[in-house]
């Protein structure tokens, strides 16, 4: 294809990518480097229905507007926002590490910093949910592939349900089922004959519920991809393996898995990226007390009574960096293979 034709073909999507992906990222990076202007305050009389009149500070809007016109982006703060307590907390971290406390105490203090608390859960979610969901998806794919044709359709549909359901709704449904009045919560209480047992009260059980939900909702994606992959496994290789006396397990181990390995890399890549942005289940499970994630921190900065764009921008950039670090081994491998093939 001539370069010109190729360029004409990808131009529309290129424009869309620049507009909707590249520019917003540039804007987020830019915002994260700035903080608000100093607020010019004045003391004024303030009267309201309750409490009568009191003297309180107000923002002097005219003076602040003048500052804003002079520097529309705010005060340049460099990487200041990145290293403050709400993010990488370099000063706090240094103080904790150089203190002469025991390791467990240090660990507890690090987890007390909001960014690290969120990062730990995010990483655990990523590295527990991704392999388990892939394993579950793969076994469903194998099982469905072995089914007779008539039953395949409905079973595939049911296996895909967790992916069809909106994540927030899915997590709410599971959350209600796990509440003490819900079918799962009541059953668990009955099994352990402990009427005070509640999945929502203990941090460990909340994490367990979130991870279980993650596996449940992520498995269908692996299933679909692996099921499609299974259709491409060469029949003659499988047949010759059978003639050689390979059992079903040996066929999976030595024929199917090597055949699907590149596909697994792709699934792992997408799933890691997805799981690093875990957000909905935390809201759905009302788990803010016991588990937070990087995406939840961004949401928390932007909602509520005061919106902190610089802080949210810094967390977003750190999330992007986190995704790049997570994916780098896979990306490097793909790049090497690509170069290998090209040569």
């Amino acid at each position, binding site marked *: 294809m001539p370069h010109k034709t190729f360029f004409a073909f990808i131009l529309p999507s290129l424009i869309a990518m620049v507009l909707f992906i590249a520019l917003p990222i540039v804007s987020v990076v830019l915002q994260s480097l700035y903080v608000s202007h100093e607020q010019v305050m004045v003391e004024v009389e303030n009267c309201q229905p*309750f409490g009568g009149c009191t003297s309180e500070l107000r923002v002097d809007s005219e003076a602040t507007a003048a500052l804003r016109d002079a520097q529309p982006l705010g005060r340049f703060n460099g990487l200041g926002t990145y290293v403050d307590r709400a993010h990488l907390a370099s000063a706090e971290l240094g103080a904790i590490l150089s203190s002469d406390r025991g390791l467990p105490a240090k660990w507890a203090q690090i987890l007390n910093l909001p960014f690290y608390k969120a990062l730990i859960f995010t990483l655990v979610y990523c590295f527990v949910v991704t392999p388990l969901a892939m394993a579950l998806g793969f076994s469903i794919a194998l099982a469905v592939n072995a089914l007779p044709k008539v039953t395949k359709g409905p079973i595939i549909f049911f296996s895909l349900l967790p992916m069809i359901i909106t994540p927030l709704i899915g997590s709410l449904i599971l959350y209600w089922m796990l509440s003490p009045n819900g079918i799962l919560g009541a059953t668990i209480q009955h099994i352990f004959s402990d009427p005070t047992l509640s999945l929502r009260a203990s941090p460990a059980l909340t994490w367990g519920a979130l991870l279980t939900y993650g596996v449940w909702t992520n498995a269908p994606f692996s299933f679909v991809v692996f099921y499609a992959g299974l259709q491409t496994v060469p029949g003659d290789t499988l047949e010759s393996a059978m003639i050689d006396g390979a059992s079903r397990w040996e066929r999976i181990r030595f024929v199917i898995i090597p055949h699907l390995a590149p596909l697994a890399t792709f699934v792992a890549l997408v799933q890691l990226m997805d799981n690093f942005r875990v957000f909905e289940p935390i809201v759905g499970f009302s788990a803010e007390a016991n588990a937070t994630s990087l995406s939840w921190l961004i949401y928390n900065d932007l909602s509520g009574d005061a919106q902190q764009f610089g802080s949210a921008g810094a967390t977003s950039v750190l999330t992007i960096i986190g995704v790049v670090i997570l994916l780098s081994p896979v990306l490097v491998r793909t790049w090497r293979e690509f170069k290998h093939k090209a040569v």
Partner: protein
Amino acid sequence: MKPLITLAISATALALGTGAAFADCGIEAGSVRILSNDFEALRTINATAQECASDAVVVTANATAEHKEIQVPALTINPAEYTVAVVANNSIVPLLNADLIRPLDDLVAKYGQDLQPSQLVKIDGKIMAIAFMGNGQHMFYRKDILEEAGIEPPKSYDEVLAAAAAIKEAGLMEYPLAASVKPGWDLAAEFVNNYLGTGGEFFAPGSAELTIDNENGREALRVMREMTAYMDPDYLTYDATEIQKEYEAGNVAIMNEWGSLAGAILDDEGAVDGVVENTVLTAAPTIGGGSTPAAALWWDGFTIAKNISDEDAEASFRAMVHGVSPDMMMANKDVATWLIAGYEPGPAAVGVIANANGGARPYPMQPYMGLLHTALSTELAEFMAGSEDADQALADVKAAYDTAARGAGFLQ
């Protein structure tokens, strides 16, 4: 206000909204576009204001729980997307900070005959908002349960704790207390209530310096934590609507709940037998030997956008004055604790009135209060879960607040 967001859609508001009657509000022309939170009282007001619509006057209303996120960008553009922003003590602050609402003195002089002086919210001598209803969290208790346990109605938090212990001991209820302490907006509001009750000040006078790391702060936290011993173990997932359900299910003897939900609790729907007729509404308990109810007083009111034409501003003001008219109030007496002329408190308003009469303080309107609210909402979670002590929690709140306030330009 956030705790009110999930109120069930009321049939009356719907009926009013769809079959809007036409009223002559005297408006010649203009466009009225209302942005408000989403609960019954506000929907009723929006529907009443929409009666002012005519061939020359268009009145639209957007009632949404996301109003706080929308209002600043929507009023920043010129002309503003909405001409009216319905706000409360806390949500007016971002609009004031960014200078997005206009003084109403001339409009009040011209068209505000029906308004009472106490409805006018004045900042620096200028009327910036017209309040029309009050709200706040106060005590709901079950007199039958207290009688059975042989205890007097509690007045202070220490008495509430003693009452809870007695009820539990008597085997009447496993978890007699409830409060909305879900990490997030609710948990922070609960701390603000208690801290206001101790008489403490959040900030050093004349600055944005936080001053809650003191005996008052520790007392507020002590009460919050000790109450959890008598709450359902899932308390960290309970917000205002969740404790309303628990209370209506008869699982709770004493709770702190929003006055604006009282109507829904006292109506004949949703509650098990014996709850409604035995429910008593009263002021929030006092705390730490104080004498005022440990609760913030809230008002809801309307503001008019700055970036709109004077014609639209006049039309909007007159439509909203019609929306909060004494006639509207008389037709919807039990929907809210109105601040409108001629209002006589009904059974659902007793608690908020008791808070106000007891001298409860208003929710602070300082420009940096929102940053503190956000810091409290996340940093108190571990304390409430029992994995952190009060000193550490207060230090964390201060650290988080200082970081945010520096980024926002309030602290150096």
